[in-house]
């Protein structure tokens, strides 16, 4: 278990001045700041729009979206928490197969909604610390729709700053997917391997 320690924002800036230091200390949870969490989401949103506006094919958009998930989201922890108590009984091989299948499922499912964002914008409006993580708020303005709230939860618990949950108009991605994965597991009578195979085919 990596030990966690906290630094104040000022001390953090004074000591490093760059998040690159986090890479220099692998395995150690770094103290993220409100500003850095907000910057992370701003970069994510900007990369997201670069991908959308590149005007690539749908297949290209999917792979771009998978790349964004890889860079900005902590898929292992999201997958682990979505599987819940069943994570504990999964073997190492099952765990990594599940993380892989779940990542593919998420990028297919949400990647197909990419085009809804065309012509719209997401404006990051603020950030605050909550317990050991950060809440970054944003407003999505899509064509012909009233603006709505999108909340990003960011943590550096993995050693790197990553998004670990997304809440769109109150709808929580992690809890919603936890229920879906739970239903898939029930349908397969608790058989993890069969559920993982299902997940690979789900969209």
């Amino acid at each position, binding site marked *: 278990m990596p030990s966690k320690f906290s630094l104040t924002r000022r001390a953090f800036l004074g000591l490093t001045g760059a998040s690159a230091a986090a890479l220099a200390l692998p395995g150690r949870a770094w103290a993220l700041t409100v500003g850095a969490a907000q910057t992370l989401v701003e970069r994510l949103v900007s990369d997201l729009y670069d991908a959308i506006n590149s005007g690539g094919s749908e297949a290209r958009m999917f792979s771009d979206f998978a790349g964004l998930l890889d860079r900005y989201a902590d898929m292992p922890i*999201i997958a682990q928490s979505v599987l819940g108590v069943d994570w504990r009984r999964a073997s190492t091989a099952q765990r990594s197969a599940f993380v892989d299948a779940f990542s593919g499922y998420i990028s297919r499912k949400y990647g197909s909604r990419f085009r809804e964002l065309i012509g719209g914008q997401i404006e990051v409006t603020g950030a605050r610390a*909550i*317990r050991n993580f950060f809440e970054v708020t944003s407003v999505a303005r899509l064509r*012909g729709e009233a603006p709505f709230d999108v909340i990003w939860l960011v943590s550096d*618990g993995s050693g790197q700053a990553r998004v670990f*949950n997304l809440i769109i108009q*109150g709808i929580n991605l*992690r809890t919603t997917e936890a229920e879906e994965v739970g239903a898939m597991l029930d349908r397969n009578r608790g058989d993890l391997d069969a559920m993982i195979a299902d997940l690979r085919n789900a969209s």
Partner: protein
Amino acid sequence: MACGPAVLPGASEINDPTEASNRAMHDLNVAVDRAVLRPVALGYGTAVPEPVRTGLGNFSSNLNQPLYVVNDILQLRLDDALRNTFRFLMNSTFGLGGLLDPASEGGLYAEETDFGETLHVWGVSEGAYVVLPLLGPSTSRDTAGLIVDSVMNPTRLAFARPESDYITGANVADALNTRYELGDEIDRLYYESADGYAQARLIYLQNRRYELRGNQPTDSADAYSDPYDDSYFDPYEDPYAQ
């Protein structure tokens, strides 16, 4: 009214005592969607050009504005009442009777509300989860609200036949357009999800509670579980905090 709004249930709380009959109703709604709604909506969306569909949708939703205003007043939300009144006047005149939506184009969006929300503001709690025929997810409180709304809707009271039939027609067209526009999402929920009933229930309740919460800050302990924590079902849960 002095007692303030009802307490919203925790993010993961689900009260569904009649789950078996709700599931049966959900299955019926899916069957109706498959046989009628989906194909008709696809036909409507394909045959009718987008500007016409949008115009009919605008017309239909503009006629809901007076009902919003009534509920805003009952909730003592006078700023929302003014906003919705202004929208209604603007769209009914400059928007050619509501076919266009210049108010939204100017950034003045509808503050949608209903009598279910009014009941919430008056202190009535959510009640049980209910699946309604055709209309889908609701709660016992919001179902009561729907009935009151349909009785007290000023637009419905103001027009007799045949105008009221045209309004009903516009509402049906708007519903078909919504089914068409949300096609992929509803298809996924109804036909692809491992348990579409449970997904629809969770999505509906989360979104409804969020709407009712308004500008009130989230109860972060409940709504934001930390998956880094060892608690799995708290949505604002931090998974890193082991």
